[in-house]
């Protein structure tokens, strides 16, 4: 009777062992490309990222778009929830992995986070580049019938519920990314219809909305987009966590007088 061997099944990765060690790879191929013998010298980081997610080399415009998106997302700044979470690790000397886990946990969320991007990409999938469909979806959002580990999103995905107007970095990113992509693509369409969409959403476009459009135009699925968005925002979280570790808790907000416990029973009287 033949024994079934447990193995990893993958379309992404192939290995050939060193002759003297079955556990050391002599050659590695990613989607057919020899990683260390060929790809290493020729592919950029973002080209390799695209290959990993899509299984094909990106076209020139796709590589340029992903590169620009990666720069735009790399550091949302220390006020962002994901970076803030990472800094709370860094400032108190937590492990660096935990800082990035914290960044992922907060950055996964539905206000400027990766799950919001996925929801916005699902909207793209449903509404395409049809303004009426977007307006209907934004004004009458679908409510999930079933409860889930993710709570129901509280605003139109891809838009900033606390925004007064579309922030300049969002407009600058959209403008630049739209220039890279095809004029018939999602980014150009978003730029053209931004004001109408903001009216329907009753909120200005957010960076998550630009990212969703870019990821959609790159041909990624919502789950691929969610994962990539998580990944691309880690550099800033890492750098800010390291910086706060140097500064220490003395220079970090603690909100000493910021907490108002309205049902505080007060100090116990000495008996």
């Amino acid at each position: 009777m033949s024994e079934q061997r447990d193995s990893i099944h993958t379309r992404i990765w192939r290995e050939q062992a060193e002759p003297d060690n079955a556990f050391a790879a002599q050659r590695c191929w990613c989607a057919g490309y020899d990683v260390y013998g060929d790809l290493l010298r020729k592919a950029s980081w973002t080209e390799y990222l695209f290959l990993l997610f899509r299984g094909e080399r990106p076209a020139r415009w796709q590589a340029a778009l992903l590169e620009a998106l990666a720069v735009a997302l790399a550091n949302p700044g220390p006020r962002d929830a994901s970076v803030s979470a990472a800094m709370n690790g860094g400032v108190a000397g937590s492990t660096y992995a935990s800082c990035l886990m914290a960044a992922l946990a907060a950055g996964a969320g539905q206000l400027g986070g990766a799950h919001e991007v996925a929801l916005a990409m699902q909207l793209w999938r449903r509404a395409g580049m049809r303004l009426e469909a977007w307006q209907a979806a934004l004004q009458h959002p679908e409510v999930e019938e079933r409860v889930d580990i993710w709570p129901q999103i509280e605003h139109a995905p891809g838009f900033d519920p606390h925004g007064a107007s579309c922030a300049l970095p969002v407009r600058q990113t959209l403008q630049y990314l739209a220039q890279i992509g095809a004029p018939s693509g999602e980014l150009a369409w978003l730029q053209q219809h931004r004001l109408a969409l903001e009216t329907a959403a009753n909120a200005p476009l957010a960076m998550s909305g630009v990212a969703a459009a870019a990821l959609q135009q790159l041909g990624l699925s919502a789950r691929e987009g969610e994962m990539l968005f998580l990944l691309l925002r880690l550099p800033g979280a890492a750098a800010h966590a390291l910086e706060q570790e140097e500064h220490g808790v003395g220079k970090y907000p603690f909100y000493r007088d910021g907490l108002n416990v309205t049902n505080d029973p007060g100090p116990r009287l000495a008996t």
Partner: protein
Amino acid sequence: MNGPRQLEASMDRLVTQMGGWFPGQRTVFRGHDLHHDLSDLDWMGLYVFGITGRRFSPAQLTVLHRIWTYTSYPDPRLWNNRVAAVAGSVRSTGSLAISAAMAVSEATIYGGRPVIRCIDFFQKSKQQQEAGANLVDIVKWQIDKYRGIPGYGRPIVGVDERIGPMMKLAAEQGLDQQPFVRLAFDVERVLLEGRYRLRMNFAALSAALTADMGFSAREHYLYFIPCFVAGMLPCFVDASVKPEGAFFPLSCDRVSYLGVPERVW
């Protein structure tokens, strides 16, 4: 546009009834002095008080404890436990191993999703029954729509070995004949009498037990978060003391490639 008014109003200011630390004086926990007023609570009592703001009877806490006990499997092949074991094998830290293993427990085929969807299914089914719906129709609608019932059926095997011991304890504590527990068994009966052949798993029974305690779906989900953790630690400890990297190592030929042939960049 709403604008930033809400953010402006919240700057440097958090109003809460959940609690806070008064350095050197006291800690307030949901309106009570942690070190004086709540010292009668054990950790589970405090944990569920933190989630719900409610206190539970000794019988209920015994059941809540036991649910966690019965979900703590020190088997490193289970996917969440394997995260802890892999981390131990490569000499990562305990906190990283366990917190990552807990995070991946929020899964679709086990853990987080079935946990919250199961109690939600029971609570909605009960409402529908009270409005006159037939349980057979409720179950059929659920299966037709979602291709399954959360809490029924199980990865790997069909039978759940935890049901018997848990029901024995529930009976001892007088909690085995509550409405949601009866509903859980009624659903299983409908499934077995139909063509579905899905047996109740532990997620269903535990959801029924906490629903009978008045947990909302969200409260039940939060209660369940650490339920696997006691089983993770042995996996981490074992992998940590064994030779490094020796936890189910994979040789290169165990990577079974399904992709395109070799090509040049």
